[in-house]
């Protein structure tokens, strides 16, 4: 499975989709294909179609071994049924409940760093509609994309952020995808902690988060690489 498809499926795990669609995604052959794709992205040296140098390869950690031993990743082998997925979302991807774990970046970052924002709570963490939501809305607009109505409150919903990675890769914007991956998904560490608090039910979703974090560690562009890839782009080394 191609990287863009892997991210597309990751995205659909965190958002409501039609039953037929989920059934198709979660049927054994298809799911195995997804897992293979995810494993490759986690493990392989190739970075979204971008050839890394041998030095860079040496510098990278290879997280696969520990990942495959983790219980959460084992949970990935059996995707939930449509109704299990729906029930989980109705209990956990909904706000205001003791077991809420809404996958929205805003809830895990400082609300606003804009010095002009004088809201009494601009410094707070854990509120909807933070800078990351504004950013995602603007990115979508600038790229000519549209945020679906159901995500109007949270353009920085995990499903949309993953979806954007998929769109970028499919559109040939590999470097942008890697930079975005590195920059955007730091909050998943905090979100993962929240999921951990939910008990066994959440193992599947923790596994998915681990996959994203793993791919990010492997493929995401750090500051140093950022500069290097900018130079490479400038010198025309990337096709």
């Amino acid at each position, binding site marked *: 499975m191609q990287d863009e498809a892997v991210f597309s499926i990751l995205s659909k795990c965190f958002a409501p989709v039609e039953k037929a669609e989920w059934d198709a995604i979660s049927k054994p052959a298809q799911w195995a294909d997804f897992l293979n794709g995810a494993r490759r992205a986690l493990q392989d040296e190739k970075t979204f179609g971008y050839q890394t140098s041998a030095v860079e390869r040496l510098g990278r950690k290879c997280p696969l071994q520990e990942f495959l031993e983790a219980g959460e990743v084992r949970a990935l082998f059996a995707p939930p049924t449509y109704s299990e997925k729906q029930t989980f979302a109705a209990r956990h991807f909904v706000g205001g409940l003791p077991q*809420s774990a809404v996958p929205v970046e805003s809830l895990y970052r400082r609300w606003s760093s804009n010095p002009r924002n004088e809201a009494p709570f601009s410094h707070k963490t854990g509120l909807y509609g933070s800078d990351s939501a504004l950013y995602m809305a603007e990115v979508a607009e600038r790229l000519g994309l549209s945020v679906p109505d159901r995500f109007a409150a949270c353009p920085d919903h995990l499903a949309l952020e993953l979806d954007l990675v998929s769109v970028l890769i499919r559109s040939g914007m590999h470097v942008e995808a890697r930079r975005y991956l590195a920059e955007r998904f730091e909050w998943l560490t905090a979100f993962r902690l929240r999921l951990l608090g939910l008990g066994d039910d959440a193992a599947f979703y923790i596994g998915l988060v681990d996959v994203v974090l793993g791919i990010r560690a492997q493929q995401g562009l750090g500051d140093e690489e950022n500069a290097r890839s900018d130079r490479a782009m400038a010198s025309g080394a990337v096709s």
Partner: protein
Amino acid sequence: MSENAITRRSFLAGSAGAVALAGCAGVLSFDAWSQAHAEESDAGGQTYTAHSLCNACSTKCGFTGYVVDGRLAKLLGDADHPYAKGKLCARGYGYSQIAYSADRLTDPLKKNEDGEFQAISWDEAYAEIAEKVKAIIGSDGPEALAVVHDPRPSGKYYAKRFMNALGSANVYTHGAACNLSKESGFTQVIGSGNYESDVANSKMTMFIGRSYADAIRPSSVMALQEAHERGAHIVLVDPRCSNSKVFADEWVPINPGTDLALVLAMAQVLIREGRYDKAYVAEHSVGFDEWAASIADHTPEWAEKITGIPATTIARLAFEFAEAAPAASIEPSWRGAFGCSYQNSGETARAIACFNTLLGCWNQEGGALFTSSVSAGELDEAKFPAVPKPAGKQLGAAEYPLALSSMGSNLYAARMAKEGALKGMFFYNSNMAAGYSNTAYLAEALGSLDLCVVIDVQMSETAQLADYVLPDTSYLERLELPEFVGGTVPCVALRDRVIEKVHPNTKPVDEIFTELAEACGVGEYFPFTVEDLADAQLQSVGLSLDALKTTGVAYFPDKAFTYGKAPKWKTPTEKIQFTSEAAEAAGLPAGPVWMEPAVMPAGTQLRLIGGKQAVHSHTMTANIEDLMQITKDYDLTRVWINADVAAQLGIADGDEVEVSNSEHTGTCRAKVTQRINPTALFMPSHYGCSSPEQHTAYDVGLRQMDFVPFHLEPVYGAAMTQEAIVSVKKVGA
């Protein structure tokens, strides 16, 4: 569906799944975006303002919200608004956070078989609620349904209309746990549930159990300060020396529950000494002689034994009132000491209205005023069809005959739920289960219902007990019906929408009730939007919605109040009633005389009293982090205990103490102070949240209502929230 088709379909890019590369350079760096965005903001950004009304307490102060990039950026109190006068209190600043709170309810919820909530669609929620409503009406009639709400501009209209449209008269406000006794008692005497003391212009004003400095309305604080700085004599009658002491001349530390004796004794002095306004009494009242005779033995010496206030002080206060009259009054209070606190609260209210009459202070400068008000005129019946008057009577109207029907006794409704007569209840902006009376009783009562529906913004204790929880928008996200505000110059103010909905699947209260009505088959009474109705109401008084959106507040100078003119007394006799036939018919004395509180502390027991702190409103603001941090920094959950009593009990300041009675036992720290009557234990009324969904408020401090037995004030139907006796001991002692 092929793999390709599925994985290609994107939430953001649709079925194409890709974008064109051109023109995207630099868009994706968050840091670059942040910087550009801040610069854009510096250059003016996308800023707009809207006028709205605060929702951090019932005052509803006007403010201007500044919105940058669609988000609330700043609030400033509106100088034009009669209550705000350009200021907001700590709650006003802090509570605005609710719109973005992580603890917001985002989707309709249904309790599943395991007792846990899960999200369902609005259509499912409406259909299932409607099915149960119809089943209840089918088996028990519409009188088995009720709604309880804490009045808000739109909520009070829609909640009542919805219940009446279903054919039920069971519409209750929070009043039985707030100001029911006071308003009902006043009504018996002066035909009006309230008046306004002209504090700023008074020579003397007495506050009984109310503290402007702790339950803040900016204009009231300013009036009190003005009075104080002008040299008015300000008297606080309260078991607790409140923060209003800063602007008061004396604190009268009365035994809680005995305010009635003080008022009657002061009246007795004025009458005995002939120091009351005889001409005024003769012209405007009935029953004076009978009442005067009935309180002839209520002397200051008699009252001293009950109230703990020296007879000389009581007599002095009465004479000072006589000197200051008519620029003097006893302030009407709100919840305070006689809104719903004791068995004698309604009678205390009657006595206070009688006392003010002796001063001849009604509508006199510096006295007690019936200021003007304006309300919406007749509307087009075709667009806003009238709802037929329900056939049945409000439950409790017969049992609690003096309770104002505009409030009703919600506690009687709870009792009927427990006894099975009431099958379905709706709650709007009401946290009855945590704030109205005994929490265990209320949980059982609400748990007995076939249908319990709660409309709120966060998971209150009441919502926890519901079968369905419907997520409201916050006050910042909706337009509401205009709020008409009485005053020396009456006005109308608007809660306009400041920001767009944060959560797309929440709905404003007007839509929720309209759609519930449609689902229940009574949609014909709701063929209009809130905008239509707001505009029609404003057109009926010569304004428009668009105009009011611009100014936030509009005054009616031609309806301004003028001093001196006696009002039309809306009592059955069209006079001030020192004696009331209705009271007599209900089994009370014709005129107010001494009545004991329901319980009295004995030995080392203390009476548990509650009250507000300036940073909170009941249980509503406890989940706001900035405000709760103040509670933590200053240890505001402590119970106040008199220093001498504490010494006897071996309790030192800051000690952990156990508070217990037949209803509940709990521990918290003690504040040992000279500022409280030795028979009282003060517990602030904001804490002890038991809803884990409120992450900030949960489990901080003790909850007063856990200790209050479930009982109702005879005749008036209020909660008697301070008829609770507790024992206190040092933990480990």
